[in-house]
């Protein structure tokens, strides 16, 4: 109840829809009444879009961004295909029980060849054993994340649930990471690394974005017995203690990979899913950042990452709310707009619809906004999208606090031990867009909430969103 009301407040308070519309429009996509688009995967291909659905179908939309896309059924009979990727002349798809590749060999507009590339993991028959991906690594391998079951396992308990696995180009099955919970998004970074998003629950304090590296353990003990199997590339992580704070957990479990970014529940979405990097500057000033769809809050939020002492870390920020349903997948269209694929079947979400497609279109105007927060030895550096009014830069214009989470077996963690931090100094840079905050009390493993409440643009505008949540895993030495 409290949580729901909190979300409602957030929905209504900080962002007027009019302001959001000014920068990012939400464009509806016409959908025939007899077509269900419970979106599992999106694959834009020039003028057309392939959409895989939870009903096991792949719909092809020709002239996809036009006012009247033409729908045709390209494939059916798949099992909950939650991701599509084109590679090597084939369309690759992650199904519950296999990684497959497909093609339309006779060019009649329907898939007629499906090859099972790998089906080396089994299914217990539990509904929650979703398979997400694939993400293509530079070495040609395909990475998948395998959700863990909840409840009945009618065909018996199986290995590799809550794992990330990798399928090599010759079809070899390699289980690479353990301890995942509900890893609804997986994608390859511009640098060729694989990241994934996970959803709050037991052993997952809140939503997160995390790097997947071979051998890492991500905190959930459900599938760790599989570490003892010969195929496992993850050493058995040992006992997972219940109830430690994050700094304690990091110490107690050396194999535990902390997330790059915690995504605080109900502050920025609830259930992060698919994500993309904006390498082309489709969304104006946010080039280089990550845009994440949320399965609950029907919003797209953004994440910035930086590498500190060899580890990725960064911050998340609100971006655009008010889509019509929880978002499972996002993908860039060739025209620079962002496809948002949606479904909320089986869970609740904000919005007015239960499935479908919308697009976010950047309107070309740059809002005054907190663009990026990066860590410094003695505080944070804030960059804004446009020049700030120097007169508004003073310590009181900012509010900073931090908290930690508990790593435990119960569902989600409250924000533990919240502490307000004192901003000792706020210094504006020569570019008039950068502000360095000198702050006492930064603590690694804690989430730092930074609000730029009093800052104004040179023209007097308030920030579109003036808040960031930075997960400080490592404090820079210099």
């Amino acid at each position, binding site marked *: 109840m409290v949580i*729901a009301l909190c979300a*409602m407040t957030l929905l209504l308070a900080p962002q007027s829809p009019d302001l959001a519309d000014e920068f990012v429009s939400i464009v509806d996509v016409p959908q025939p009444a007899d077509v*269900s688009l419970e979106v599992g995967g999106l694959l834009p291909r020039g003028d057309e879009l392939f959409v895989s659905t*939870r*009903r*096991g179908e792949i719909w092809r939309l020709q002239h996809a961004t036009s006012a009247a896309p033409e729908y045709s059924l390209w494939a*059916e*009979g*798949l*099992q*909950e295909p939650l991701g599509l990727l084109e590679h090597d002349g084939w369309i690759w798809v992650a*199904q*519950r*029980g*296999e990684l*497959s590749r497909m093609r339309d060999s*006779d060019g*009649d507009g*329907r*898939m*007629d*060849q*499906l*090859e*099972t590339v790998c*089906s080396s993991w*089994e*299914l*217990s*028959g*539990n*509904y*929650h*054993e979703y398979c997400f991906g694939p993400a293509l690594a530079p070495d040609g391998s395909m990475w998948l994340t395998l959700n863990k079951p909840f409840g009945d396992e*009618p*065909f018996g308990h199986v290995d590799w649930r809550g794992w990330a696995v990798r399928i090599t180009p010759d079809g070899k099955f390699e289980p690479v990471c353990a301890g995942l919970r509900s890893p609804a998004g997986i994608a390859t970074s511009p640098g060729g690394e694989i990241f994934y998003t996970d959803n709050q629950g037991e052993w997952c304090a809140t939503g997160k974005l995390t790097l997947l590296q071979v051998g890492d353990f991500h905190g959930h003990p459900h599938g760790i017995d599989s570490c003892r199997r010969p195929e496992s590339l993850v050493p058995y992580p040992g006992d997972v203690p219940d109830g430690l704070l994050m700094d304690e957990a990091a110490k107690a479990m050396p194999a535990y990979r902390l997330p790059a970014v915690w995504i605080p529940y109900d502050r920025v979405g609830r259930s992060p899913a698919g994500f993309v990097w904006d390498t082309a500057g489709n969304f104006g000033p946010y080039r280089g950042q990550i845009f994440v769809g949320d399965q609950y809050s029907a919003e797209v939020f953004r994440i910035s990452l930086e590498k500190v002492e060899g580890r990725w870390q960064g911050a998340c920020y609100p971006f655009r709310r008010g889509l019509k349903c929880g978002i499972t997948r996002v993908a860039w269209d060739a025209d620079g707009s962002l496809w948002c694929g949606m479904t*909320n*079947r*089986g*869970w*609740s*979400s*904000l*919005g*007015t*619809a*239960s499935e479908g497609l919308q697009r976010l279109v950047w309107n070309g105007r740059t809002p005054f906004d907190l663009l990026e927060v990066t860590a410094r030895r003695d505080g944070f550096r804030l960059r804004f999208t446009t020049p700030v009014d120097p007169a508004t830069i003073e310590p009181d214009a900012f509010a900073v606090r931090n908290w930690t989470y508990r790593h435990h077996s119960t569902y989600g963690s409250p924000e533990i031990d919240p502490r307000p931090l004192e901003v000792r100094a706020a210094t504006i840079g020569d570019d008039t867009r950068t502000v360095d905050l000198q702050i006492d009390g930064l603590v690694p493993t804690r989430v730092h909430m930074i609000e730029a409440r009093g800052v104004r643009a040179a023209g007097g505008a308030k920030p579109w969103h003036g808040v960031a949540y930075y997960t400080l895993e490592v404090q820079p030495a210099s």
Partner: protein
Amino acid sequence: MVLGAAWVAVAGFGAVGVGAVGEQGGVERDVAIGRCLACHAASPGTDERLAALPSPRLSGLGERVGGDWLRGFLAGHFPGRAGRERAADVAAALLGPAPAIESRQPVRVSSAVIEQGGALFRELGCRACHAADGVPDIAAKTDLRGLTAFLTDARATRPDLPFHDFALEPGEAERLGAWLLRARRADASSAPPTPGFAVECFELHIADPGLPDLDGLQPSAVGHTDTVDVEMRTRDDHFALRFSAMLDAPVDGEYRFRLGSDDSSWLWLDGDLVIRNEAIAPFRTRDARVRLTAGKHDLLIVFTEAGGGQRLELDWQPPGASLGPVPPDRVFAQADALLPLAPGSLPRDGESIARGRAAIAAARCASCHAGDDLPVPDPAPAWAALRADRDCPSVPVTPAHRRALARRGTPTGPQAPRDRLAAELRELRCLDCHDRGGAGGMRDDARRELTETEDLGEEGRAPPSLDRAGHRLRRTWIEAVLAEGRDARPYVRARCARLSAERAAELAGLFAAVDSVPGDDVEPPFSAAAVREGQRTVAVGGFSCVICHRAMGRPSLGPQGMDLAIQFERLKPGWFRQWLLQPATLRPGTRMPQFWAQPTPAAIAQVDAVRAWTSLGAAAPIPAGVANPPGSFRLEVSPDRPRLHGAFLDGLSAHCIAVGTPERVHFAYDLAHARLAWLWRGEFLDAEGTWSGRAGRLLKPAGDDWIVLPDARLEAPGRTVAIRTLGWRLDAEGYPTFRIAVADGLVLEDAPRPRFGDRQIELVRRLTARGGDLRIELPTTPGLSTLVGAAPQTAIELRDGRAVEVVYRW
């Protein structure tokens, strides 16, 4: 006729038909009602039908019959003044010192339920036998529990009413009972109001956030609650709840109401919509401020849930108070109560009961009635020894009894089927609803009150004529209708009674014996071409039968006429042909069009093709133009391409693909175990388990003739067999070929495809080995023939690159 009237009172029927009995059989049936032979031993040659009818059971009478009523009844049941005098004692003895029915509490029944009961009474056609205002005296006889028990299972206590099993749902029986007993509805001023809300649950597809029309829907549950929440739901998705109550406002002033829901909800006060909380979305609240006077106000809430989570809350804030739930003592379910039977004035003393038991013995009640601890009567004189001018101590003697006595010794030959049928139709009261041979049929006043659900004229409302029923209908169909409640006309709401299996078989046999015409059961030839021609004929684009007729449970495009898929099972071929060619010759005034000007050979061939198509029943190929109802998850297969569905299949694995074909012979492949696993016919799959909620439920075929294939054994000479699925390919028509790795470099291609055989559709499995030779054992299972060529075979040698066709018939 005194006796007849007495039974009328027990049964509550207007006229049991005693007076209408004919003389054809030589013995009048009202004599049989006398059950003379239950007491008087018969001599050889006595007509056995004299004792043919059973009597009410007397066990547990105190659960269902009030004492005062029973005394009144018994006063007429026993003959003469003596009967009247001992009625109180016998009633006391039958009911015992403390009958349960006299110690019951008032039963909460809303006025809506009572009204629905009245509508149901008319809709079901109860009016064919009963008076418009119900059953006289019933409210004095029994209470809601007793009446509901009778309506639900009449045969348990009333074997004398073999025609009173209407397969009522408990809710229907309760509604009917509440209406029939409405004379005992509590006066609002005397009955204490019931705190809380009356609540009903409805199951319906919620496609949008808007307000559904619940009027006329049958609730899936009806109850009572202290709090507005979703506890009363009967399922988690696609349902509506309706709460009604009288709100007692404590003071004049402005009241705030907060209605929160996931998904939509609405609140009305005194008929005005004050909160509209419409969205298919997570929980959120809406507030309204309303000025109310102190006192009673009508409150109504409707809630709908499409999918996902469900939640509903109501808070209020009276003037000067804080926001919180409406306390149960401020709302009163708008439920009337039915008052229990008042304790009667029967004597309860041991002396009276003893006198009553003596009277029961003297009247030989136990000869006819089963009951607990009934005194065993002394033997009565033999039938042959009775004097025709004396009275009987048990029942009043009528002129008919005396005529039967006078005929003693006259041999009665076996009754002709025609007479037996006539007697059965009368005794089972069939002709109160149906007409036959120009007689019978529902009275106009009752017929006028029947519900019209489809634009099908009188054929869509009234029970059908029984003219030539045995020429028209297969004997097995008549039995299924009478014994199992098979219903060809769901649009006719008047409900036919169910008979015992023996009685149904007897009646069906009599219809066949009386009405059959030589040659009316000769089936026309069957072929694949005929099935396709029939399919085209009934389809939109052909004669468009599916515009007025349902097909395989799917709605038609216009009025929802009788389902085409059951007609082979139902109609004899002779009638079927004539009905399609010249319907008005069989049923003047029918709405069935005549499609052919003349019954030419070409017309007959086309009708026979339709017959061939219907012979596949629910497994017949779906004609063009037929669609699924909205909200259904039933997977339709288009006429031109197979349909694939990935799913968890029960007993196989969570990694399966099912293939539905236009031929309506379907199969499933277990991809996890690389094998063809299931075959079946008719309906393909209901995908609700895969396509609703979080899915992942185990599916079974939706159709019939389900075969689970045993595991095949594969051997490759000199190679290690390790089987896994490599994928599948689709040919130009969309039929799959599964590719199975058997050993390193050795692939088995498996292409199953339906084909028309002789009278049915079979599955042909084309198997090809690539990269070596292969031996396959295909163990069979009961009911399944496995053939290669024409010969049964279970072991197959596959030579590299050469296909072998395995045929499955079942």
